[in-house]
């Protein structure tokens, strides 16, 4: 070998050739892994669905709606007229609980709130970003059932988010509302099943009620 060190470059030994495919597979796999993690791990299906925070009062929709058969609108009375469905005031709880289970320990926060006038601080489950405008009455009055977005609340001990509430999810229904339309009288009936094909019923209702959901940006991002 020449003694001149200036041209002396490092040459990988031959045995490292076996590592080449390993490195390539590692790089490609890493990219794929990152893509998969970002696609699925960051999607609302992973981050939002299944969110079931602990509430200050262990109120069971399964008991009140599922077993006792209360209508959604007894408590969420503003849902048909305003943007908010309105979590009920403590007064609504006490309509019944001043007599039923009046001494229950679980209801202490409710009774305290009723006596002091300080509100019960419920934890928000279905939380849309602040830059999104959503109006409950616009959907409920046109035959989109509660169940379409909130799931089977009547079977939930603890309210859990079941839909991603992402923009793509909203748009899917705005593009194809017939998948979720039902007669107005069944809007709050969570276990209702159409007697015929949902698509056929939905198309007919859409035609009948002239339902054309807007898809422009300013509909929700006002």
């Amino acid at each position, binding site marked *: 070998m020449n003694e001149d060190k200036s041209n002396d470059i490092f040459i990988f030994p031959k045995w490292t050739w076996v590592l080449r495919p390993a490195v390539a597979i590692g790089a490609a796999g890493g990219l794929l892994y990152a893509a998969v993690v970002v696609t699925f791990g960051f999607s609302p299906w992973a*981050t939002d669905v299944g*969110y079931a*925070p602990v509430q200050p009062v262990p109120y069971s929709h399964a008991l009140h709606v599922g077993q006792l058969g209360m209508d959604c609108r007894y408590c969420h009375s*503003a849902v048909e*007229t*305003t*943007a*908010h469905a*309105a*979590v*009920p*005031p*403590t*007064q609504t709880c006490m309509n019944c609980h001043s007599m039923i289970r009046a001494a229950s320990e679980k209801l202490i926060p409710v009774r305290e*709130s*009723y006596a*002091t*006038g*300080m*509100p*019960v*601080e*419920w*934890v*928000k489950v279905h*939380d849309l970003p602040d830059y999104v405008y959503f109006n409950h009455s616009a959907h409920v009055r046109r035959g989109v059932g509660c169940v379409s977005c909130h799931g089977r609340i009547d079977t939930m001990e603890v309210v859990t988010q079941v839909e991603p509430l992402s923009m793509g999810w909203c748009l899917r229904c705005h593009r194809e509302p017939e998948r979720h339309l039902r007669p107005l009288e069944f809007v709050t009936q969570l276990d209702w099943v159409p007697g015929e094909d949902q698509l056929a019923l939905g198309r007919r209702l859409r035609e009948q009620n002239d339902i054309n959901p807007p898809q422009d940006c300013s509909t929700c991002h006002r």
Partner: protein
Amino acid sequence: MPPMKHDGARYWRSLDELAQTPEFQEAVRREFPNDDFDRLPPATRRQFLKVMGASLAMAGLTACRWPKETIVPFAHRPEGRTPGVPEHFATSIELGGAALGMLVTSFDGRPIKAEGNPLHPDSLGALSAVAQAQVLELYDPERSRRLLQREGGQAFAREWPDFERAAAELFAGAGDGVAVLAEACSSPTRSRLRAAFLAARPGARWYEYEPVSRDAEREGARLAFGEPLRGHADLSRAAVVACLDADPLFDHPAALRMARGFAAARDPEHGAGARLYVAESSFSLTGARADHRVAVAAGRVPALLAQVARRLVAEHDIELPPAAASFAALPAAPGSERERHFVELLADDLAAHRGSSALLVGPRQAPAVHALAALLNLALGNAGATVAFTAEPEPERPPHLEAIAALAGRIREGSVRTLLILGGNPAYDAPADLGFAELLGRVPVSIRLGLHEDETSAHCSWHLPRAHALESWGDGRAWDGTVTLRQPLIEPLYGGRSEIEVLAVAHGAGSVKGHELVRETVRGLAPAGDFESFWARALHDGLIEGRRASPARRSCCAPPSPRPSPAPRASSSCWLRTLGSSTADSPTAAGCRSCPTRSPRSLGTTLS
């Protein structure tokens, strides 16, 4: 501090440190007690950056946490309230001594937007920029949040009960040495409380000061008619409008109504036309709409008006009362060619439209100019058609400038011991030659109610936080006299109290709520019958229908006729006493339109 222990060169920051004098060591010990710097771990630059970098990275991580939001419903939802649905309330604000009705939007209990009250005669559903900005003033973070008492150069935080105890002593007795300095205010409740306050304290004095006012107009009417009358212009029926340094479309308590009237008159299909002549020194909103505009210095306006008057008398047989001669003899230096042309056009047009023209002069002009304009309006037959005069709500009130000068004089001679300042900011806006800020320091006890801790508060021994108009109960009168109510949209954010509540405390009535005070006033105005429904209706509308001033039917320069006697059920408000009972059946502006327009000749005979 022991000398630094290290091997390198020793640095020092002062000669004292180098010498390690006892004074220096004492100063260091006081500045850094118990800190022996040499025993602290050596924090190198590298270490510092490491720690800061790590905490920055960690701080970023908190953004990954899902924010937990709470829903806080009412425990007892008020009747008729639905969360997320805005509500509107009729209320009013006081701007320069006249109330302006507005509808305020409240979203979940917070006022967010002010718009005009369509039922209110001076608003008609619109609101000026100043009035709309009330919402910003309400949420102004610079507002005063505490009650202060200054003693011996120090300020102490106090509570309202402390002030109430102090007030009980300060305002006890016959009120000798007591003075009150208030803003111009049209509130019947304040008038009622003031009357009660002064009646119980014969020695007390009441002063009203407003830096920008329409006092010249008022004094002009006094010159022309022998008593202060308030002028109203109905531009909707005017064929010719002349504005001399006046900006009726913007700078007037009834500007919104006049702007509507003007727009109606300009309607090419139905309007009277309202050809607009403007002579002004700066470009105003009115000037921007003028058909004929001439730019003149404000000081030239009297001469301009005098020339118009002379031409009307000389060329068009308009007869002016002898008294007008002295006003018309205002200096008439020859003006520019443009000015002469303007005067000729204006005078000829005014003469051609007798009974359907309006001559308006701005508040900057001297009383004599206003007097001449009022007399010209009468002589042209405009009074009762496009221009009306009503009784001034408080004719005995001296002009603001005289009032503040009188108060300054009394302070200077040392006869004011307790001064109650309700609003305003006289230390800032009183005439500079009075030296009011310095005079305030001479008053033993000065109490200031204000939205801000400003120049006046700094010179007073008490500062009281004032409740904003959107936080308090109150009332007022529109420019045409309509009684307008004010209701709070929100509890006082910073525990302030309104002017009438503080006045009630000073009067010794204790901490009465403004609600009670206003209700009591309205009770005096209500017809017999169910008061609760009357009150609910008045609150809903924001005003009491039919409570407006009736036009004064008075020929010019006649001795003032005796005042109508107070109606048996008139309230204790001074303004109502002077007006007698003006109920819904009294002539209103609409009724005034139906008066037959007198021909100039017949008017001329009554004038001469």
